[in-house]
């Protein structure tokens, strides 16, 4: 077991909901209320000075629905730690911009694509879609083809023709012709 996971467990005890190791990568699942404290601890005590990425997962039918994923690394000795926290649909997440400045745009993307709100974020507005776009496109219930919207003089969206799609590739296919992405049921 990673020394970092052990240190986190001794420091936070009950707040650590789970841990996992897969091919040398360590993941800890923490309670949302303790997330910010864990992150401060990771940076100040464990030396994770580099926030590689923030992403979010939509489990749709599971409660709590969302999950925040933070990828931490330390530059000097190449350590890696993944911290996850479950987020219910009505819950906000404490921003980590005060710990790592780079979290600013990552959290804006999570807000834009998944609709998870962050408290104490300095500039929480959409980053990819425009202000006023009514949906959060990476949520599971949002169709890949999109939904029609109209904001005169700003932007509009339409519905993409799927023509039997979405188009998937078959990773087990032997040759490149068979690997071509195609609609399900279409040969």
């Amino acid at each position, binding site marked *: 077991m990673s020394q970092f996971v052990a240190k986190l467990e001794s420091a936070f005890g009950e707040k650590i909901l789970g841990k996992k190791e897969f091919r040398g990568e360590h993941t800890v699942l923490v309670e949302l209320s303790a997330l910010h404290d864990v992150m401060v601890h990771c940076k100040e005590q464990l030396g994770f000075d580099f926030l590689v990425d923030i992403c979010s997962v939509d489990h749709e039918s599971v409660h709590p629905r969302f999950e925040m994923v933070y990828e931490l690394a330390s530059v000097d000795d190449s350590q890696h730690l993944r911290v996850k926290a479950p987020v219910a649909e009505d819950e906000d997440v404490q921003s980590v911009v005060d710990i790592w400045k780079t979290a600013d745009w990552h959290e804006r993307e999570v807000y834009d694509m998944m609709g998870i709100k962050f408290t104490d974020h300095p500039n929480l507005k959409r980053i*990819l*879609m*425009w202000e006023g776009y009514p*949906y959060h*496109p990476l949520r599971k219930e*949002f*169709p*890949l*083809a*999109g*939904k029609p919207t109209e904001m005169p*003089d*700003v*932007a*509009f*969206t*339409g519905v*993409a*023709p*799927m*023509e039997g*799609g*979405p*188009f998937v590739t078959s990773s087990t296919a032997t040759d490149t012709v068979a690997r071509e*992405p195609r609609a399900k049921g279409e040969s």
Partner: protein
Amino acid sequence: MVSPDPNSTNFAYDSKIEGNVTFTQLDAAINWMRKNSLWPMPMGLACCAIELMATASSRYDISRFGAEVMRFSPRQADVMIVAGTVTYKMALAVKRVWDQMPEPKWCIAMGACASSGGMYRSYATLQGIDKLIPVDVYISGCPPRPEALIEGLMKLQDKIDKEESTMDLKRMPEPEQV
């Protein structure tokens, strides 16, 4: 070349009249000038723009077709080359640039994305720039080779050659309202 028959109508150039005078149709002259000085508005939005740059530089060299003068101001451009994925966020900006280009103007949809949305059948991508502005020439490819863009440009030149450029001049004036 001096025409043997002075009453013939098919002589084009008479060195006896003057050294540098050519007779032709007005339409043909205007179209010839237009098609050989197509100044592109490079609307480079994705990887197709790289091929567009390659087409403009020395190896492929679209200055051979009079189209090397990339104008980043739409007011000086004749042909908009939409090179790349048009996202909905960018779509109205492309339309706005197109609207700022003076007539006569043409549009080349370069590559699969600009022509039809390409592989991006999703909520974020406009499914072809022809949903917003009229397109004269579509070029297939992802991205197209520079040769394909040159072929498209030559197709556009052929198209311009057949236009009736003096049509507006010939039109009868509106009768005055009494």
